[in-house]
């Protein structure tokens, strides 16, 4: 089964369909070469992908365009205001957070990564060799080293 076709934008000299029939370059095949391409099974699969892509783009675009056409557009200062719970906005939304949270987030990463690796290791623990046990212990020690460093530097105290 020949399923690979040279895809050309102009009418090809001859088309070999999936059933093995050679379509010679007649006037008919020159005019309807695209139809012959579609009829070919391999190309048909791609044709459906193209249809699907078209539908996938059209489906969300249609309501957006329709609402733009039908929706009454009447902006007023209150309507376009920032906040939405009935009160007018006060102050700057770009609030600054304490840098202390950042250090806590960093220390949290130690435990997060450890959990992700240790859970599957603990599940398969009974079937593992001594070598893999030592490998994980080295990994845990590396993380403990990081924790000890953070502790020694005072990162665990809230200032």
């Amino acid at each position, binding site marked *: 089964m020949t399923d690979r076709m040279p895809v050309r934008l102009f009418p090809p000299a001859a088309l070999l369909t999936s059933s093995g029939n050679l379509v010679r370059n007649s006037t008919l095949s020159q005019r309807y070469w695209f139809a012959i391409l579609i009829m070919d099974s391999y190309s048909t699969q791609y044709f459906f992908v193209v249809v699907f892509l078209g539908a996938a783009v059209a489906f969300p675009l249609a309501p957006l365009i329709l609402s733009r056409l039908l929706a*009454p557009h009447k902006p*007023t200062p*209150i309507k376009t205001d920032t906040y*939405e719970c009935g009160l007018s906005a006060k102050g700057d939304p770009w609030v600054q957070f304490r840098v202390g949270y950042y250090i806590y987030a960093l220390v949290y990463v130690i435990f997060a990564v450890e959990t992700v690796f240790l859970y599957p290791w603990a599940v398969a623990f009974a079937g593992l060799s001594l070598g893999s046990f030592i490998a994980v212990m080295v990994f845990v020690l590396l993380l403990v080293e990081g924790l000890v460093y953070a502790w020694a530097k005072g990162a665990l105290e809230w200032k």
Partner: protein
Amino acid sequence: MIDDGLKSELQKQGVFVVSTEWLYNWGRKSSIWPLQFGLACCAIEMIAAAAARYDLARFGAEVFRATPRQADLMIVAGTVTKKMAPQVVRLFNQMPEPKYVIAMGACAISGGPFKDGYNVLKGVDRYIPVDVHIPGCPPRPEALLHAILTLQEKITGQHIDRSRWYDAKATTEFPIPTCGEHDLLPPANPEVWQPPKDYTDVTNAAPTKKA
């Protein structure tokens, strides 16, 4: 325009012919998204109406939006205090048109049992145009369903060419009251509410010096 005889003849064959306006209104009335917003005990009945037993979803109105930007309907469910009134009006202003208001319960309509309270707004229709009033204290979920159906009926009767929301000149913003010394300022929006002729607001009157 298609005549009714042909219309019903086609309908027998399973072909439904409708006007663009009917389709437009049908789409709007079948998906009235309320603002997720409750003020007092009426809100509990509103929640019950949206939950499984009464199932507001049957009428397409179960999608309670947490932002006025996406809401079509404001259900004023509960006592509107004078502290809250500016926020209610502001939220109504932030809703996109076309928008509707249901005043749910005695408090939202008139202040209800708290009408004599110094801090209670005597009806939300003093500041925003109310489409449907539901009496009750609190109204049962069925009453809210009835209000939604009444609103659907109102929407079905509206016309695109005479609509307020495509009219560029129509008022879109209702003035937000501010808290004054004795009452909200202004005490009502004269565009939407006029006091009855024999009306004297004793509880709201500014204290006068005794002679």
